[in-house]
């Protein structure tokens, strides 16, 4: 392959690699002799040196990698600051439970999740997606949690009644959820999000204890 053709191709391979990539590996993928790859790498390095780009070619860990120029670090860090928060699985689970079952106590959440949820609750409270609605009038006076306006905004919901129900979700693939109907999903099987007639009884009996 012509070096003028090969150079951008080698650049693409390095660009798309998820870490430093060895010259040998590129040679193998392109079915070209290593010498040609090395020549293209030289041409690429020369090209970057001649007309400075935002990144440069670094030989690292036995391979090649494109890296942003160190003098841009400050700007990049600045952009990093507005990196959005990605929900962890525990956070999303906890949020889901609270959204659908509010008002709800921590022990109810932990019962459902089967794990301590204190730190997740704290994070969600800090992110203002949850709020404390008050204390439950049962022994121990546990705090009860609910979602906030910010929660609705984040999910683009006009109000809580716009939350889709699990039944609608399950209906997407009906046969897959056959067994669920019998017991695994008794919480939200009907239209009304907070009323669950199949389990109303047991919910009451549960809440009187906590």
């Amino acid at each position, binding site marked *: 392959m012509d070096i003028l053709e090969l150079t951008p191709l080698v650049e693409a391979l390095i*660009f*798309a*690699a*998820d*870490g430093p990539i060895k010259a040998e590996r590129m040679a193998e993928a392109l079915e070209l002799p290593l010498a040609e790859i090395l020549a293209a790498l030289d041409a690429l390095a020369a090209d970057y040196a001649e007309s400075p780009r935002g990144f440069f070619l670094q030989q690292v860990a036995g391979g090649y990698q494109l*890296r942003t120029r160190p003098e841009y*670090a400050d700007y*990049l*860090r600045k*952009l*990093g*600051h*507005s*990196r*959005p*928060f*990605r*929900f962890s699985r525990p956070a*999303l*689970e906890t*949020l*889901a*439970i609270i*959204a*659908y079952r509010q008002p709800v106590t921590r*022990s109810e959440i*932990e*019962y*459902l*999740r*089967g*794990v*301590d949820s*204190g*730190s997740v*609750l*704290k994070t969600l409270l800090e*992110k203002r997606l949850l709020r404390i609605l008050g204390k439950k009038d049962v022994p*121990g006076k546990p705090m009860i949690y609910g979602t906030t306006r910010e929660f609705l905004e*984040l*999910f683009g919901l006009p109000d809580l009644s716009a*939350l*889709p129900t*699990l039944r609608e*979700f399950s209906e997407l693939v009906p046969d897959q959820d056959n067994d*669920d109907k019998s*017991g*695994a*999903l*008794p*919480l*939200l099987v009907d239209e009304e999000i907070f009323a669950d007639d*199949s*389990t109303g009884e*047991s*919910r009451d*009996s*549960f809440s009187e*204890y*906590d």
Partner: protein
Amino acid sequence: MDSYAIQLDNFEGPLDLLLHLIKKNEMDIYDIPIAAITEQYLVTLDAMKNLNLDVAGEFLLMAATLLHIKSKMLLPKIVEEELEEDEEDPRAELVRRLLEYQKYKEVSQTLENQPQLGRDLFARAAPEPEVLEEAESGFIAVGLFDLLAALQDVLRESPEPFVHEVNMEQLSITDRINAILTLLQGQESMAFGDLFSGGIKRSEMIVTFLALLELVKLRMVRFMQNVRHGTIWIFPAVELGKVDELDVGEDSLGYS
């Protein structure tokens, strides 16, 4: 017959099949000869059945629709002139659906041919490390689907469904109280959550909870938190050596 079978398998649905028949017979989609298309459609369904293809309900529904349109078309048009404004061609809705479907069928092919990220184009896989380290602020938009899916997962994995258990095994609160006190023996404190971890049954949870409440009432343990919303810690509030002598019999607790 073989090529026929392959073709039949390829139909996405009744509309797809109808479009195919219309094209194959060079019919005018705006003036579909309903008797002819109905016949062809039914013949195709028969062929599908003969080949033991699963003829989905949707195909049968369309057959019924076609027959219905056909019968409507056969009815003499009484006072045609007067009713002409209101009376729609019985085929109109079907034509609209076909045209609309055709549009999306075609554009979906265009989309398929569009360069796709991950198939034809590749973006950088690894963001700069210095960017990754940074503190997080706003939120990545999460779809409602993720919320629902998370809830469904929780409920699936939940130790037991929230259903009333009638044949619950009788667990003694006293036993549980003693078990908790035993656990507390030899350690300064334990996390509240630890008592409920390990996938224990709902009935056990309730008994454990009641046992804890009793212990607090009896001032045998104290609950503490380092920070608000932090882990609840359980501390023994009495000298544990004396525990055995305390009377925590069922009767004194008011449970049976």
